[in-house]
């Protein structure tokens, strides 16, 4: 019942916040979010699952209750965790707390609704990672869209409505495509399953029990369903060329929401790919590995190139997320311990690091009110701590050793280079070039914004931008209204950075359970 407790806590918090007075909402939300955070860490510490949830592993915190019977199928409330979902749940709770803290400064309107939606989002995210019944999972999967839509559209930037509806419709279409693909499989399985229990489905599919549906033979059905599901999840990840909702959503979303969007929402896509495409239809994934890898590599390189062309700090990080998520796909397709495990680890790592970077951008934006690289320079002089965090986060993003960013990418490379599919080494080698481009745009952005002589172009002045140039003294910032960030702005940064380093030095904390859950995946796909 502990998973239900976790989800319930988030939902309850959401309700409480909706009725709470705006004035106290920030503090209340932060305090409340510690409850699920603590609970999830407690669950993490006491995690006892073994093996892969979908492949007959021993689940932790499992509950099954019958819910709906839909014709030939039973829908159960079935939740449970394995070594893949547990870290992602912890990631969700951690990032939610971080996002709430980093929202204190920028969110000044309808706070109670904001935090209520964030906690609702948290509940949905936890649900996505915990659910084992398809329909339960799908409810949470779609439920994520609603708070996100509001969060972007109400508290977002100037083009927030465009971005919100784009995100909304785009990802919804994707869900439907995936849904159709998945149910084609379910019906293809015929009588061999009686519920929408995903582990049962996965095992049935891997056991080769797929029949034909509407005159389509099992092999073709499988391939088509794989394609539909891949296309659906690819939007969420996002994989080039279905990525264009992401930069808009990121740029327009308020920074705390970007933290969650990049940190957790994108992981839903790769998590689902791992669970559905790469677990249930492992044989198809292996047959078309080279094509999938091609998508991954294009995402990596093309995403990085796009990031290189951007001027808006958030757009840079947004496109770089496209690039980083490409690594995850590449790792998944490898079907090696390091490949799939590394992909999962990279999900965690990228969640923390991109969250950190977005939060840093947010802290800077809070005081400068611009995110354009050209509009500011020398922020380090005024915001030394934030700058340090930004630098650390950026280097972690570039894959600096002893941060989780390095290990995530390294695991993936290691796992993919010797994978079985044709050209694996070449794909990997090309994808690795991403580490050079990522260094290029992040270093460029940092050099331009954080270093050099201090100055901020503000558009407050009449008739064009006014650049204020500061002196050498760090303490004279007050006159330019560029102040050191408040403690509550920095705490989430420090929290995330600490985790990035801890995972970078002691990856076994999560890689252990990930590996344990991934290992069964690598053997015995359907013939």
């Amino acid at each position, binding site marked *: 019942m502990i998973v239900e407790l976790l989800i319930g806590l988030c939902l309850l918090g959401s309700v409480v916040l909706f009725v709470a007075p705006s004035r106290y909402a920030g503090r209340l939300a932060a305090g409340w979010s510690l409850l699920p955070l603590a609970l999830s860490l407690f669950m993490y510490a006491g995690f006892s699952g073994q093996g892969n949830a979908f492949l007959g592993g021993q689940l932790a915190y499992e509950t099954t209750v019958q819910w709906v019977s839909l014709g030939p199928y039973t829908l159960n409330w079935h939740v449970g965790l394995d070594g893949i979902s547990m870290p992602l749940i912890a990631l969700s709770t951690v990032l939610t707390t971080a996002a709430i803290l980093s929202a204190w400064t920028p969110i000044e309107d309808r706070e109670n609704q904001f935090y209520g939606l964030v906690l609702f989002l948290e509940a949905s995210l936890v649900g996505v990672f915990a659910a084992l019944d398809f329909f339960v999972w799908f409810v949470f999967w779609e439920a994520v869209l609603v708070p996100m839509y509001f969060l972007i559209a109400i508290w977002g930037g100037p083009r927030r409505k465009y971005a919100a509806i784009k995100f909304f419709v785009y990802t919804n279409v994707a869900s439907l495509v995936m849904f159709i693909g998945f149910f084609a499989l379910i019906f293809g399985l015929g009588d061999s399953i009686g519920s929408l229990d995903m582990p049962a489905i996965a095992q049935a599919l891997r056991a080769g029990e797929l029949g034909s549906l509407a005159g389509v033979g099992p092999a073709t059905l499988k391939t088509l369903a794989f394609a539909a599901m891949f296309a659906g999840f690819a939007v969420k990840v996002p994989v080039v060329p279905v990525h264009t909702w992401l930069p808009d959503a990121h740029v327009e979303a308020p920074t705390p929401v970007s933290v969650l969007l990049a940190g957790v929402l994108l992981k839903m896509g790769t998590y689902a790919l791992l669970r559905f495409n790469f677990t249930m239809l492992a044989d198809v994934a292996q047959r078309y590995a080279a094509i999938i890898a091609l998508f991954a590599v294009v995402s990596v390189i093309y995403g990085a190139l796009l990031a290189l062309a951007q001027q808006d700090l958030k757009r840079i990080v947004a496109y770089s997320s496209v690039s980083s998520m490409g690594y995850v796909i590449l790792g998944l397709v490898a079907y090696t311990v390091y490949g799939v495990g590394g992909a999962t680890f990279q999900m965690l790592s990228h969640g923390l690091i991109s969250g950190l970077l977005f939060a840093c951008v947010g802290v800077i934006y809070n005081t400068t009110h611009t995110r354009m690289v050209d509009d500011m320079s020398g922020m380090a002089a005024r915001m030394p701590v934030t700058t340090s965090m930004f630098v650390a986060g950026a280097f972690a993003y570039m894959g600096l050793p002893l941060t989780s960013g390095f290990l995530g990418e390294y695991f993936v490379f290691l796992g993919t280079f010797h994978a079985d599919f044709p050209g694996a080494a070449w794909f990997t080698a090309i994808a690795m070039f991403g580490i050079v481009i990522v260094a290029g745009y992040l270093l460029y952005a940092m050099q331009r914004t954080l*270093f050099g002589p201090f100055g901020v172009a503000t558009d407050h002045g009449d008739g064009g931008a006014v650049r204020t140039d500061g002196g050498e003294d760090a303490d004279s910032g007050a006159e330019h209204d560029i102040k050191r960030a408040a403690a509550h702005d920095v705490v989430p940064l420090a929290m995330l950075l600490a985790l990035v380093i801890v995972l970078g030095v002691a990856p076994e904390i999560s890689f252990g359970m990930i590996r344990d859950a991934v290992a069964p995946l690598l053997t015995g796909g359907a013939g």
Partner: protein
Amino acid sequence: MVATITAFAFEVAPAIAILPLASFVIALFAGKYLPKRGALAGIAATGGSLLLSLWVALTVAGGATYNEEIYSLVTTPNTFDLHFGLLLDPLSALMLVIVSLVSFLVHLFSLGYMNDEGEAGLPRYYAGLGLFSFSMLAFVFADNLFMSFVFFELVGLCSWLLIGHWYREDAPPSAAKKAFLVTRFGDYFFLVGVVAIFATFGTTVFAGPESFPTLAEEALAGSGGAGGGAGGLSTFGFGPGAWFTILGFLVLGGVIGKSAQFPLHTWLPDAMEGPTPVSALIHAATMVAAGVYLVARMYGFYALSPTTLAVIAFVGGFTALFAASMAVVKRDIKQVLAYSTISQYGYMMLGLGAGGYVAAVFHLMTHAFFKALLFLGAGAVIIAMHHRQDMWEMGGLKERLPIPYYAFLSGSLALAGIFPFAGFWSKDEILFEALVHGIGGSPLLLGGYLMGLTAVVFTGFYTFRMVLLTFHGEPRTHTARNPHDLGWSVKTPLAVLGILAATAGFVNMVPVGTILGLERIELLHGWLDHGISGLTVEHYGELTHDFAGYTTGALAGSEVLTVLLSAGISLALALAGAGLAWMLYSGPNPEAHTERLGDVRTLLMNNYYQDEYQVWIAETFGTGVARLSDRFDQSIVDGAVNGVSEVSLLSGDRIRRIQTGIVSNYATLLTLGLVVLLLTVGLAGGWFL
């Protein structure tokens, strides 16, 4: 008892790196509350590291070695093992001493250069130095290539941090970015290499029977050189020989970037934007040495591939000449030293490529001392000159700064390769190795030799041009007449290094040994020839002989003659270069003769337009392609998305026009619809047949 103590030295060896890490943490978090802003912690830590390193070196000298795993990052059964470990053998012990010594001295020097000058951001500075020392030391004792890569990258970060120390100016952050990016470009290949080595051998351990050089050797030996099977190793569709060559090249990418070899050398001169002690420590003595050290570390692997060796030698020789020529015209004292550093690392690469493993390590050691010395000397001059670095603003500092002068002179003589200073012995040995292997059947090496030899002239010239312009003649500016006073913290390191620059060469006097027949005088050779089997000079010699076909030749069949001739030629050329400098720049008021070079000067001042073409490449293939992609993304990819929505809405607008508001039309459409339905179903059901 002895065994216990031996073991104990190795047990505490991790502390060599951990101590500076602690100083990093202290400086970072508590630096601003400490009396010297973290300097003392750094000095204590690196001092401790130095002592421990010496202890380890002594233990290694006693014949013990150590090759153990100490921390496992990932415990993954049945697949690649990612761990940190300790490989303590003569090579790493030597390097540990060098690194911790220079680091210690630089920390000391920084008291004078940074603290006394009232610089801002000292905790950050000392934290950077501490982190660097930690990373570098850990890199040195790494027992596998993965760990090497980890710390290779970390030293890159430190380099970035420290070059950009004065971040409020425009140039340092830019230089830092460039340094990191250029080395990152090299590291990309290194990363591919590490991963590929993992994929090929399943391990990246340097030493032992299961190490990758050994496995590679066995694979090649087993398959008779090239083609055929590779002892169960996956060679990705290549023959083992070809594949190992590719692997070697990949790792070499990182080496070329880090050790600033052509064509990835362009970052190093810019890196001089950092504080001078940093230049001394990172961009001269240690970090830049990481590349060369890495080649030496896995020499057993490189020795298997003649192609790789030839390329290393050629790149090294070319870089030595190329960089030296640019140093000739520089005005900034640190720029001269920067190009000289590139040039000297070129020599080391030449040595490694030419099969002169001992020579290269030897030069690595002597260079660490004399180049650190020169940089620190330059630092002392810069302090004295109130942070002016243009040599044409100096002059006549000899009388005013005697200790720096003599120390600097010692370093310069070593750099120029003048007998009997350290550089002479080591550089000469490299050239000698290239020569003998060149005439012994690998004529390609002669090309490297000739380039190295030519560079000797340039080296002699620019070194003495620098000395003369800085210290001799009449002071050319007011500052030069009234230099700043120097404290003990500046002078002590100079003195120590000055002595080492003069004497370090005596550890391996090959010419003397050969002539006198005293093998034992080649101490370094002996030092590197013991320790873990497979990592010894003798073994490397066998490998280069068996796999790369290196055989020692001799001029006129006489080894002694060859040695003498080689040493004599290089000394003569060095003296010639120095003499030319003396001719041109001695006297109270030297003139700038560089004008006479005309277009060549422009070319040299612009560094052969290396920066320009690299920037052009980066702009075209990086930014240019990025812009194109962005435009493509906005217009085509996103345009398609928006297009779909626009088309939908437009068709929605059209469709709703069907509803004209006139009910007769509705009735008509309704009837038509029903008729269509009837016809469709009727046709499908075959009613009309």
